[in-house]
């Protein structure tokens, strides 16, 4: 429980940093670190397969895509960077305050969460889950990927010619 609480606090702090930092690269790294922490939390909660997916897709693949896109951008001059940092802190200063307020409210009203995690023997094999039970969802995910491919083709290939 102690480890889980530490991980949760770290998760909140790092995700806050990812939102408030003015540099895209730091934001991408913050997101990757958040995913890595979430992976540990999932593992601690007894969901190793979800943890593996989180680590490989969110912390791995998506971070690689973000960092490669960020590498195509130009670095801000120092003066501009300082200006942006100030404005970003001003813009998002409410976020930590909001979190503290939410925590205070939760501690005060003591929400009656009595959720039980499913018993280990009730969890289906991931292969059965993906290919038998949730087959239609996989098809949907493939369609979502296809839409993403179209997005990349349309947004990043430009419009140089009128050809097909």
């Amino acid at each position: 429980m102690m480890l889980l609480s530490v991980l949760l606090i770290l998760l909140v702090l790092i995700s806050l940093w990812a939102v408030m930092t003015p540099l895209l690269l730091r934001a991408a790294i913050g997101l990757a670190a958040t995913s890595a922490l979430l992976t540990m939390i999932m593992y601690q909660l007894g969901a190793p397969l979800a943890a593996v997916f989180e680590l490989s897709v969110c912390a791995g693949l998506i971070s690689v895509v973000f960092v490669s896109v960020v590498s195509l951008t130009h670095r801000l001059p120092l003066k501009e960077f300082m200006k942006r940092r100030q404005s970003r802190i001003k813009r998002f200063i409410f976020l930590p305050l909001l979190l503290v307020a939410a925590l205070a409210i939760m501690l005060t009203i003591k929400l009656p969460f009595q959720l039980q995690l499913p018993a280990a023997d009730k969890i289906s094999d991931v292969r059965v889950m993906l290919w038998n039970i949730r087959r239609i969802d996989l098809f949907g995910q493939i369609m979502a990927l296809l839409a993403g491919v179209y997005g990349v083709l349309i947004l990043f290939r430009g419009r140089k010619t009128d050809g097909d």
Partner: protein
Amino acid sequence: MTYLLLFIPFAILILINLFPREKRTEPAFWLGLAVLVFQAGAVVASQFGYWGTILTSQLESVFGFNLQLYKMGHVLVMASALAGATALLVARATLKNKRDRFNFVGLLLVSLIGINGIAMVTDIFTLYIFIEVTALATFILIMLNREQAAFEGAFKYLIMSVVATVLMLAAVSLFILIGGGTSFLDVKMAVISDPLAYTALLLFLCGLFIKGGMVPFHGWLPDAYSSAPTAVSVWLAGIVTKASGIYALIRLMVIFGGLEPLQNIMLTVGAASIVIGALAALGQKELKRLLAYSSISQMGYIVIALGSGTVLGIFAALFHFFNHTLFKATLFANVAAVEEQTGTQEMEKLGGLAQKMPITGLTSAIASLSTAGLPPLSGFWSKLLIIIALWISGHYFFAAVAVLASVVTLAYFLLLQRQAFFGLVPAALKEVREAGPILLIPAVFLSLLIVVIGLVFPFMIQMVLR
């Protein structure tokens, strides 16, 4: 039929990408149109029990998806076929770049798969997945012309959609924890037995309100509709926002319609959308923005009908859903014609177009009057049924709101007609001519449907309600 509605668009999507690059735009258009014609034909054929016995049973053994196409799903499938065909024709006439036209067909097919999925799901997580498929394809469609305003419109839609996604996923997680599953049946059992699942259902509904552009989550909708290419606006207004937000609401209300707090939420959100959408439409200067606010108002009618909690209310909501596709697709096709011929959609720069573009003028008048609920057009019947459903369920105040807002609807459409189609023709528009057949065919066809359904409906109502 369920599998064909997913696999035929998917197969065509693959096929159009196999053509040589320099020769693929034309076949893509015709194949895309063929998919939509098939889809409309399939709905008609299903009324005679054709699909269920022959193809589905064989495909079921191969794919085994947990899908069902109920009668109400037919309405969505038919509406998407009509809106899609209109959008394809408008794209052919208005998108000048061949690659844009090709990409439009591809993305339309992806979002069509999403919409068909929404029509057939039996599970709340699968519903979420197909809503996301539709939304992803739509973000990119809005940005198709790569203009600054379109990026801004798509960005607003994206941000609001992310909020909706968070709400819906949080709800799904709670359903899994409480009920152990995500099928509609599991969710229903969970909602009945646990107040926390009830809260989760409210979160999911909030997500759907965002996706459907309902007040107070409507901020993204006018920007997205007005900044997108007009062909995309036809698709967005004709079906996308309605399928991913409103149809999903109808589906859930069929399951949870008996819960009174949900009915009250529907009534309040519906009434707010009707009034705010209509009042905002009154002050618009651009055709597309006016139609966008009008959509918010009309979708409010669908939601308020769901709030009546009666079978008649659900039927009226579905009927208005279909009618909204007819008149909004017609009006956006009209906007495409006006913009194509005059180069503008600002109402102050237009005038007297009915003399120069008589067919566009006539079809826009039919669609406008149907939206306002004037007899004997189809919109009149759906609005009448909505008001009756509200009245007999004892919601007199909301029935009065629906009636009064119809007057405001009539007012903003009369303003539109007066500014754009009547009065004197400005000097700059003296040479304007009627739009080409590609833009007129869908407008005329849909207007005819509006009139025919309006005339035939009184004779069919007993049969339909049975």
